[in-house]
């Protein structure tokens, strides 16, 4: 109550959400501007408050022990969309669904299809660097960012990058924030690189055994096709009886037609095209599935090790809610897992020089395992130093490292 009153005095009465208090009873605070976030975190530093950062509450469980929860949900404006420049600026608390609609109204597209529910916030996607199948054709989250504004754990408002297509002025703190899981500050504003809305957007799928579909994806890779996405789904994830290899083509009508012909030639013509509404439902269901089970993680291997890594993940975690991007080597798994199993899998992957990133999990599990866990040679002290630079009092409740590695 004391903290809530203090925050009300600082940011106004409506800054503390009365009707949607956090499950653990801590005050949930919704600053309405980047400056208000800075003021709140500056005060948190002087008061010694520990702060949990939340978005829409649809991805990371809102369960990190804290004195208050800072939600970005009132940072939901889109200050600028410049279709002629293919750029936009959006606040971190905007839902991806609303952003997508606003951009489409201007004829532009953010080529990201992150896992999770449609209303997941942009800030959550950036902070966790959770790219979806479109990573194959358009790169990871960091490749869509021109700049970010963020607030450090001690309340400093920092700008990084800008809103133009190329920018090497100063060190690239934008990339530090993309996938930093909030360890280096609270993202409040994001400058985005966009694409023209594709004139044509086709999805084709092929069902079969994992082995057969792996062979087909190899043939597709050898054909050098320009695909927006190439994703392999396990049967439960695709809600089919067998594995599914899904291809998405996006671009001008002639380009999509050419690539579709190339795809059919490379695969023996076996792919089936989905109608637009079927395609939308297919990709959306798969994305949502990753937010419905307790734990989601990603594994980043080399393209030619996808099969081996899929075997390893399934063997260690004993579940089959998994997707893989054979072209990029990225695997995403979701299900229920224990600390021991996750640690064992991470150790096995580390031997193969493959990182495992814990994307979402209950606090106790992510505290024990860490989003990143063990690092490669020499990286641990650098991450600790960066944490100290951007959150000197450890005000932000983030489980970056594994307990077993002294995190």
């Amino acid at each position, binding site marked *: 109550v004391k903290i809530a009153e203090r925050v009300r005095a600082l940011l106004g009465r409506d800054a503390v959400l009365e009707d949607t208090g956090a499950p653990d009873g801590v005050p949930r605070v919704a600053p309405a501007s980047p400056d208000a976030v800075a003021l709140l975190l500056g005060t948190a530093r002087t008061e010694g408050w520990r702060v949990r950062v939340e978005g829409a509450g649809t991805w990371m469980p809102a369960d990190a022990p804290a004195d208050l929860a800072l939600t970005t949900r009132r940072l939901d404006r889109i200050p600028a969309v410049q279709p002629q420049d293919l750029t936009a600026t959006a606040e971190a608390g905007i839902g991806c669904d609303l952003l997508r609609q606003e951009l489409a109204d201007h004829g532009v597209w953010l080529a990201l299809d992150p896992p999770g529910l449609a209303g997941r916030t942009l800030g959550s996607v950036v902070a966790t660097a959770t790219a979806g199948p479109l990573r194959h054709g358009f790169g990871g989250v960091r490749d869509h960012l021109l700049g970010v504004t963020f607030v450090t754990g001690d309340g400093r408002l920092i700008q*990084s990058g800008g809103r133009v297509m190329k920018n*090497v*002025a100063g060190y690239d703190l934008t990339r530090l924030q993309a996938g930093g899981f909030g360890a280096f500050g609270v993202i409040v504003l994001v400058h985005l690189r966009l694409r023209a809305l594709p004139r044509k957007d086709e999805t084709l799928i092929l069902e079969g055994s994992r082995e057969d579909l792996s062979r087909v994806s190899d043939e597709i890779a050898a054909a050098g096709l320009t695909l927006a996405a190439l994703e392999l789904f396990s049967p439960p994830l695709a809600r089919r009886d067998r594995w599914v290899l899904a291809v998405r083509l996006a671009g001008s009508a*002639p380009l999509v037609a050419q690539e579709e012909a190339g795809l059919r030639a490379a695969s023996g013509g076996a792919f089936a095209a989905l109608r637009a509404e079927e395609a939308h439902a297919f990709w959306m269901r798969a994305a949502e599935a990753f937010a419905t089970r307790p734990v989601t993680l990603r*594994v980043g291997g080399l393209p030619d090790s996808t099969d081996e890594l899929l075997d390893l993940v399934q063997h260690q975690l004993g579940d089959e809610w998994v997707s893989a991007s054979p072209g990029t080597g*990225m695997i995403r798994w979701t299900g229920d897992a224990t600390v021991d199993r996750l640690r064992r899998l991470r150790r096995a992957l580390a031997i193969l020089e493959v990182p495992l990133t814990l994307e979402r999990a209950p606090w106790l599990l992510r505290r024990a395992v860490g989003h990143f866990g063990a690092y490669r040679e020499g990286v641990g002290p650098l991450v600790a130093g960066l944490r100290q630079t951007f959150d000197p009092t450890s005000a932000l409740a983030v489980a970056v490292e594994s307990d077993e590695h002294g995190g």
Partner: protein
Amino acid sequence: MIDRAVVNGLRQIVGDAHVRMAPAERATYSKDGLTTHERLPGVVVLPDTRDEVIAVIRLLASHGVPFVPRGAGTGLSGGALAGDDAVLLVLTRLNRILKIDPANRRAIVEPGVVNVKLSAAAAPHGLLYAPDPSSQTSCTIGGNVAENAGGPHCLKYGATVNHVLALEVVLADGQVVQLGSPAGEAWGPDLVGVFVGSEGNFGVATRITVRLLPVPRAVRTLLADFGSLRTAGEAVSAVIASGIVPAALEMMDQSCISAVEDSVYAAGYPRDAAAVLLVELDGRDDSAVQAEAASVDTILRQHEARSVRTASDARERERLWQGRKKAFGAMGRVSRDLVVQDAVVPRSSLPDVLEKIGEIAGRYRLTVSNVFHAGDGNLHPNISFDGRVPGLRERVEAASGEIMAACIAVGGTITGEHGIGLDKLRYMPLIFDADSLAAMRGVRRVFDPGERVNPGKVVPLHACREWTQAPSLRAAEGAA
């Protein structure tokens, strides 16, 4: 000057022949591609292996000696210059391509590998290394990493940071760290992304894992000729807004065209054009690329292109590109000195900014040639002048400042690919506030607590919050 014990130690590590002490030898390394800055390094050392690099850095750490990593010295910001109290660590002998992995489209290289040689080595596998700065026949991959180098084709394929997956880095204290992973997943926070473009301030990359791309099977290169800079700029916006992503979209103005056509790099550009656009489209399928080229042709003509010519064969395409890539060299004929500027603006602002640059040039009575990556909005206004003329350098400085201010005023930035180095330090406070600059300095100190690697570059210390709020710090530096 560098302590004798340090010099002897360097000699023991790399051999006498690879430690350069004579003034004439050091003078070779006193400038980079931006010749308006000059510093004579205390010692130049050229190690041959990563182990020698580690040993050199550990020796320098033990004596607290600052050092500056340098590749081929083609940078354009005064970024690879060392003063007489510092050692210049030249990495051009570490020029081995360690591995090409065609199955995963990866290569592992040493920092001194020349950019174009990597693509040549990958070509038998049908692969290429996409970032292609104009200096690619001489610049090194290590230098590209330090500067996050771009090039014409980064419009479609991205700059260096989009192609670097993992790095082995030697920190200022000699510790070796492994950043990133071969697959491109960050393995913790994206420290590869933070390191690329850090201008040598965070350490020395000794092994670089990069992504290779398939060589496009079909390519079309178009040359469009415009009667005004404004219509050319508007055509650029129209092409981008159409949804077609050219591999490259470059612009040259009349002054640049004349310089190229008067040189050995003459490419057959129309001399009476106010501007030309060089547009390249590529892809897997020839008919799809041809269809996109036809669409671009139509857009260019709709925006008042006087003519649009398509290169008929690979030879003509190479000739068109040679004119563009050697334009800076061609300008060497125009005058004794050249300032190569670098700024980025929103693409839709290009027509207005180009007119503003013309107005600034007229007011200062200077020759400014524009050759740039129009598709990215990445300008290169180049000022030709004779530095021996009294007062002219000051006019060039003042005009450069006004050009930067004009770019910033429309929401642009002060560098898109050349970096800050020494040259742009003074502009940093125009785009970043004191807290943001202090945060950058904080990151630098995580990698290099003593700030010994490439000191005095990128972040203007006087503009940082901690500096403006700490009189004792100012006094200490003033005394030093």
